[in-house]
């Protein structure tokens, strides 16, 4: 594993407007401009877009997407990647749906969260202690979780979950959907964790320079374990919200989750080289993505285009940040 202790920047990172360096300012401004453009375009093209029920719908889609990509964001901040989040979501959703319809609400929730945590811990052990590159450890886990979900479900589709469980995905507190409340609480919790605690600062430090973090006496391996475990746990948490919203689960659920989760992180401006970005950006990214997917639906653009649009969004946002960050052709080019 080539570790670059020093990543000199093309320009000095002077704090500028709002305390942001010029390239971070670009990330913030470009995302807000994109958000505005999408909202304006969609409200012109579709009369249905700016209705309360549609906006609630968008928010309810953004919430589980955020939960899934928030855990992934922490991993990406350390300079790693978790490709298994989508299929861990699928596995957890299948476990939860089957046990809850089988009669045990608590057992179902516990099994889902436990499975997600277990997958995350295995990823963490492989990356932190066995030294396996994160993209390959989690890529293996992607297929393991997929296979386990298939074996568990045997091609069945489970639907019709009890109302008391469906509250977390489909319920309302006053006018506000419960998943949106969950999203806001999680966002605040993770933001405080990553900006106000030694643990969180450690996550940024590892992403900035793993060698420096280790030499400064930080327990790098335990920090890495923690972020992969959280990523697995958040994926299963997202699974509960998704199952509660859609009222159904089958194995294909996890297959379409990885690209949106990664796209939300990239759109949120978290650097794939680690150390820069955060969960607040990911929340904006999830919101933009939910709007785009909603817009495609409203405009009647077929689902066949969805993977391509997500792929394009990932490439375009990382590309733009590379150019503006002045990092062209330097730090990257190989797996970290």
């Amino acid at each position, binding site marked *: *594993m*080539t570790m670059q202790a020093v990543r000199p920047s093309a320009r000095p990172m002077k704090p500028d407007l709002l305390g942001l360096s010029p390239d971070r300012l670009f990330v913030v401004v470009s995302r807000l401009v994109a958000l505005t453009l999408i909202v304006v375009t969609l409200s012109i093209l579709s009369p249905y877009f700016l209705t309360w029920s549609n906006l609630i719908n968008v928010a309810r889609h953004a919430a589980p997407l955020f939960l899934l990509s928030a855990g992934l964001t922490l991993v990406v901040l350390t300079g790693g*990647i978790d*490709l298994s989040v989508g299929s861990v979501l699928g596995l957890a959703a299948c476990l939860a749906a089957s046990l809850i319809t089988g009669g045990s609400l608590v057992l179902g929730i516990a099994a889902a969260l436990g499975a997600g945590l277990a997958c995350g811990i295995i990823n963490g052990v*492989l990356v932190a202690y*066995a*030294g*396996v*590159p994160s*993209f*390959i*450890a989690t*890529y*293996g*886990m*992607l*297929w*393991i979780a*997929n*296979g*386990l979900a*298939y*074996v568990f479900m045997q091609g069945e589709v489970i639907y019709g979950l009890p109302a008391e469980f469906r509250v977390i995905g489909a319920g309302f507190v006053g006018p506000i959907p419960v998943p949106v409340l969950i999203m806001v609480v999680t966002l605040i919790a993770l933001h405080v964790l990553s900006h106000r605690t030694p643990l969180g600062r450690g996550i940024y430090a590892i992403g900035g320079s793993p060698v420096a973090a280790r030499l400064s006496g930080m327990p790098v391996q335990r920090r890495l374990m923690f972020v992969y475990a959280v990523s697995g746990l958040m994926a299963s948490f997202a699974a509960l919200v998704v199952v509660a919203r859609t009222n159904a689960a089958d194995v294909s659920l996890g297959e379409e989750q*990885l*690209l949106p989760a*990664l796209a939300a992180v*990239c759109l949120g401006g978290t650097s*794939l*080289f680690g150390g820069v970005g955060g969960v607040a950006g990911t929340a904006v990214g999830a919101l933009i993505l939910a709007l785009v997917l909603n817009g495609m639906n409203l405009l009647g653009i*077929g689902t*066949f*285009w*969805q*993977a*391509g*649009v*997500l*792929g*394009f969004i*990932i*490439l375009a946002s*990382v*590309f733009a940040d*590379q*150019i503006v960050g002045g*990092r*062209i*052709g*330097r*730090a*990257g*080019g*190989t*797996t*970290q």
Partner: protein
Amino acid sequence: MRTAAGHPQLVRRSRAVQVLAKLPGAAYLLVLMSVLLTIATPEFFSVANLTNVALQVSVLSIVAFGMTLVILTEGIDLSLGPVLGLCGVVMALLVVAGWPLAVAIGAALLIGAAFGTLNGTLVAYVGMPPFIVTLGAFGIAMSFAMVLTEGNSVTGLPEYVRLFNDGVFLGIPVPIWATAACFVLTYVLLYYTKLGRYTFAIGGNRQALILSGSPARIYQVLVYVYAGALAAVGSFIMTARMNAAHPTIGVGLEFDAIAAVILGGTSFEKGRGGIVGTIVGALAVGVLRNGLNLMGVSTEWQVAVVGMVIIIAVSLDSLRGLNR
């Protein structure tokens, strides 16, 4: 003891142990699986079944040859599976529409190379991480294949397309010839050309190469282009075997190819490994899948098992690296 381990030349090892230690994990897995399967299932060690394994491994090997080069540059190409699917769809659509086979093959090869160019340029010149670039390309290739076919399979292929899979030349099936040709081509490229030397060197230290002013980046792009073109070659055999082109047929094939490369002893670090190990790795993956089939293990479990094998193989490799 510690000093001795740190200085290999002080530890005296017999020649046999040295040779055995150098063999990739795939060789052990292959021998172990073959012995176990011969004992466990009478069908395994039959000409019919072994031919079947060889045919199934052909597409996998061809894709894995390209993947080997990419991984040697410390990269990865997750898009090869869907790109293979898209190439198959394009080839089939053109042939069904009445175009000559040569045009269809040319178009498919161009598409494979185009995706390789996109991946390679973004990785080499823009400096984006390979897994994120090729994952984006994964989505785009899959969408194109789905949109072109509206999610259906392309059927009604002319008879002659089946020759890519069913044809026999000098007593040996065409897919085996194709695999052998791709192997020789890749071997020559890797060990006798500038492209090959740069492939190893980029994995060794890309930064130093670029800073020293050598044209490493163009060769890094070419590696991805070659991998994409080989995926197109694989798609011809795959389409002929299915006698139809399915838009999603390739999804997951990139995973078996990565498994074959890693089991074959190519490392994600420092350009260690080579093409000979990959063919052993592809055989190991093929025998593993065939054995699980014969024992009645479902496809879904097979996927999980191959995932575990990959993780164990890479863990052993990097643990060995830590001790080195």
